[in-house]
């Protein structure tokens, strides 16, 4: 199969550095160009990547590389619609970050643009390619724990805002400045916006849809943030499954401008743990464990050194296969729309203090 000629836009998303490795290593991809959001980002790119031209203008990048077949939208959420339109106009396929947009009118515009252009738009929910998730789905399909009755999941991390400042700016993360509501002085756009995975996984694993959600936001751990950093979500699926989700930034971090060793204050900077209760048994899973551990440089703190991060291989395999063979990715814009609606319903629940059916 001919390698897919791919480029990256903006380079400001938290997954950017993972894509550097993926785009370099995958024999299915030929990384032809990148475009940096600003000079600082470009300087970082040039320090980390060699042999790939990096531009400051998207227009210039597209003009100079008319052979680009696909792009990774490694950008702030507020940039996505504009970039999807630009790609659709050029017939360029899109690997979207996990939040296309929270504005449902914009979201439908994206669907329309993608449909009209006949391009592939895959949303990067990498948990779908995680071997532990694969095992869980296999066990569920074999009926090992019977009919699911309850689902608990964490998608908790440190806060990336110091390295990726747009994630702390409501207009760039949520798309507009919307107060959380009540007496809370903060705005939508924080931890919840960073963690769609568990809202997606429950749909996938139950095969059901949300009936209602109820969310509570905690006093912020980081008082200087404009956006929420700790919240809890409960509710029910239409099949009766009760759920409890924690999408918080509840693991503290050093406020460093670039992710790297010593970022963590809490030993484990990222966790996706699931507990599934069925009528025949219980399943408990750590999607990113076990690992190795140290308390060495640079901060001498007990730290989890992760060992399993091959999700991007499956993600890229699917993306390339969909483009080359004219298939629709599993996580396409239409599938993902309901997940985004659920996350918006959480914000509405926080604002009203009541469960939200949707």
């Amino acid at each position: 199969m001919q390698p897919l000629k791919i480029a990256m836009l903006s380079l400001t998303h938290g997954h950017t550095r993972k894509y550097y490795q993926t785009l370099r290593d995958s024999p299915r991809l030929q990384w032809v160009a990148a475009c940096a959001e600003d000079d600082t980002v470009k300087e970082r790119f040039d320090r980390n990547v060699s042999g790939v031209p990096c531009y400051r203008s998207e227009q210039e990048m597209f003009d100079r590389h008319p052979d680009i077949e696909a792009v990774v939208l490694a950008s702030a959420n507020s940039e996505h619609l504009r970039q999807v339109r630009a790609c659709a106009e050029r017939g360029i396929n899109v690997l979207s970050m996990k939040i296309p947009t929270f504005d449902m009118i914009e979201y439908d515009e994206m669907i329309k643009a993608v449909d009209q252009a006949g391009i592939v738009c895959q949303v990067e929910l990498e948990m779908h390619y995680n071997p532990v998730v694969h095992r869980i789905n296999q066990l569920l399909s074999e009926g090992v724990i019977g009919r699911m009755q309850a689902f608990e999941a964490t998608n908790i991390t440190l806060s990336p805002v110091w390295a990726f400042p747009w994630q702390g700016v409501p207009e760039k993360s949520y798309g507009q400045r919307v107060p959380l509501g009540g007496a809370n002085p903060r705005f939508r756009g924080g931890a919840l916006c960073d963690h769609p995975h568990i809202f997606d996984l429950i749909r996938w694993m139950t095969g059901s849809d949300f009936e209602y959600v109820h969310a509570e936001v905690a006093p912020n751990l980081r008082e200087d943030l404009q956006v929420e950093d700790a919240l809890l979500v409960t509710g029910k699926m239409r099949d009766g499954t009760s759920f409890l989700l924690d999408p918080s930034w509840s693991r503290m971090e050093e406020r460093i401008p670039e992710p790297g060793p010593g970022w963590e204050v809490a030993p484990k900077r990222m966790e996706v743990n699931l507990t599934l209760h069925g009528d025949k048994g219980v399943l408990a899973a750590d999607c990113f464990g076990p690992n190795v551990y140290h308390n060495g440089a640079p901060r001498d703190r007990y730290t989890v050194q992760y060992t399993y991060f091959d999700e991007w291989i499956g993600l890229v395999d699917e993306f390339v296969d969909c483009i080359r063979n004219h298939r629709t990715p599993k996580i396409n814009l239409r599938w993902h729309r309901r997940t985004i609606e659920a996350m918006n319903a959480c914000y509405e629940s926080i604002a009203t203090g009541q469960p939200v059916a949707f």
Partner: protein
Amino acid sequence: MKTSKDLDAALRRLAKKYAVDVPDRWILQSTAGAASPQRTTLAPGWALPAGAAESFVPLLHWRSQRRFVELKRLVVGRTVAPVVMCRFSCQTTGEPMGLDAILYREFDLIEWMNDSPIVSVYASVVAGRFANVLVRLQNGVIGSIEAGATLPTGSQPDVLDRHEIIAGRGLASDRAVDTQLPQDSVYVFTAKGVEKYTDTDAELFGLDDEEVSLVRAAYDLASQPDSADALRRQHRRLAALVKTAQESDRVRRRLDTEGAQ
């Protein structure tokens, strides 16, 4: 546990995906099997005799396990430094890894992680099933290896190991603090008891960690066929180290290893 046929098929699928050539005469096995001039057998180094025929390529496949890759990365990157001591232990049921096989693997791990050869060995062996071993590396690091083929048949897990690297700045381990047993990624509790799963490789889903590492090591060899000579050299060295350990117990002396300076 997958059969050798399954492992060989997994290797060929992976190689095909990445357009890497695996010669038809190659066969990947989890045990040594009989030598044949018509084929090249890739098998765990510990399963092969010291003087294995040229038709065998010994795999040091544990080096492909992500936990060991990350531990080595912590040493090479000086996240923990300077390393002064390693405390390794490995218990098995004896099948398929007996005492000599355990020593073979742990000797390789300590040399590979520290990028320094063992220069002396002292071993205390009991009944051919257990050994406490102290080693010294050329760079001054010392290490202990608790090796036992003493777990009862049917034990779960059937390999119980721990690798701890102790440095002036920091300690690294493949086991979490305050635990004795390895963790798994999935636990299922049903009326039948507890089932555990640890899946580490989406491309080789369905193989356990040992099997994944065998396939990955064979794939690496297919990608770099020239590395076979280095593997054979290290195999001969490791087999000699195991023999030295047994001899050390017999004569009750610390012994310098072959080639020690």
